């Protein structure tokens, strides 16, 4: 019987200690982590809609979540939505800022794992800036007859970004 008790007991004690410490540290860090997440999202929104002071999430039954951006005077300065589509080898997630006139204000690619040096270049400014001022309703990649210049050698990623914006916007447009 002794053979059973000692290992079990030791394991138990270590588990106890570990559990305690971990739970304690978790309690300390959890709010920070949550805050970080919010901050990061907020920062991304601010990036695509710099005029806005604060954002108001808008969600309806059709489960498309978007934000309305207001300036200090609480006037609407634009909208922010996020969209995602599978690119060459990963999901490409983009956050788009719209002016109140429903033109693109700015976009930023927040997460992707495309080929470095090719598709991954979609996060670079020289790519994202070309979206500013375009009408999201009918943007197309140049290869498809549109105006968005595709990344060299990475048409698929470019398409993923462009088409994601277009498709999501088309769903959203009626609500804005």
């Amino acid at each position, binding site marked *: 019987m002794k053979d059973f008790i000692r290992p079990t007991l030791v394991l138990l004690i270590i588990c106890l200690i570990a*559990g305690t410490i*971990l739970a304690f540290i*978790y309690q300390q860090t959890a709010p920070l982590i949550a805050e970080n997440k919010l901050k990061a999202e907020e920062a991304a929104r601010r990036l695509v809609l710099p005029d806005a002071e604060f954002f108001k999430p808008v969600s309806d039954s059709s489960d498309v979540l978007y934000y309305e951006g207001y300036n200090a005077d609480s006037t609407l300065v634009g909208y922010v939505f996020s969209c995602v589509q599978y690119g*060459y*080898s990963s999901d490409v997630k983009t956050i788009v800022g719209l002016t109140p006139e429903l033109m693109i204000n700015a976009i930023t690619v927040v997460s992707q794992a495309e*080929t470095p040096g090719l598709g991954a270049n979609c996060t670079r400014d020289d790519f994202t800036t070309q979206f500013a001022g375009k009408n999201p309703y009918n943007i197309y990649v140049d290869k498809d007859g549109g105006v968005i210049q595709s990344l060299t050698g990475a048409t*698929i990623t470019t398409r993923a970004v462009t088409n994601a914006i277009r498709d999501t916007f088309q769903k959203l447009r009626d609500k804005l």
Partner: protein
Amino acid sequence: MDFSTLFIIIIGSIFVNNFVIHRFLGLCPYIGVSKKMDSALGMGMAVIFVMTMASTITWLIYTFFLNEATSIFGLDLTFLRTITFILSIAVLVQFVEMVIKKAAPELYKALGIYLPLITTNCAVLGVSLLNINENYNFIESIVNGAAAGVGFTLVLVLMAGIRERLEYSKVPRSMKGMPISFIIAGCMALAFLGFTGMKF
């Protein structure tokens, strides 16, 4: 059941995002146990078995204990996932090893001796964590675990084949052993790049 999803998971885990040469998981046994084809195969089989088991158990633990939405406690205990996963994998492996050793010594000789090596195979813990990250459901998790194991076995056996062939080649002395194995792995990784971007 959506079979095409499962198919994509299988192809993805075996070829496109092969655990060893794309995700860098399980490199130690990959380099260590690839000298002989026979042991590579034994190791591979053991890994497939353990990965499938581990995927099952960790998914259950995660779903019923840790995940806030589905947990019986209703609490977010995800921060415990590393510790619970690795503990259950370690115990599972040790337990299975003991059982096989007693119950089926023949099987143990062929397969069981590779079991202890698997505890510290990061591919096993890796697949458990990835299952959670990818939000796979129960069946998908099991399939992913098995497929990842198959992918591991595949590259392990291929590697063993090449190394057996190279054993008596004129590889420069300083490159013999580990270094050349990594070069081979590099060649394999380059070849497997052909699978990237695969879509069905």
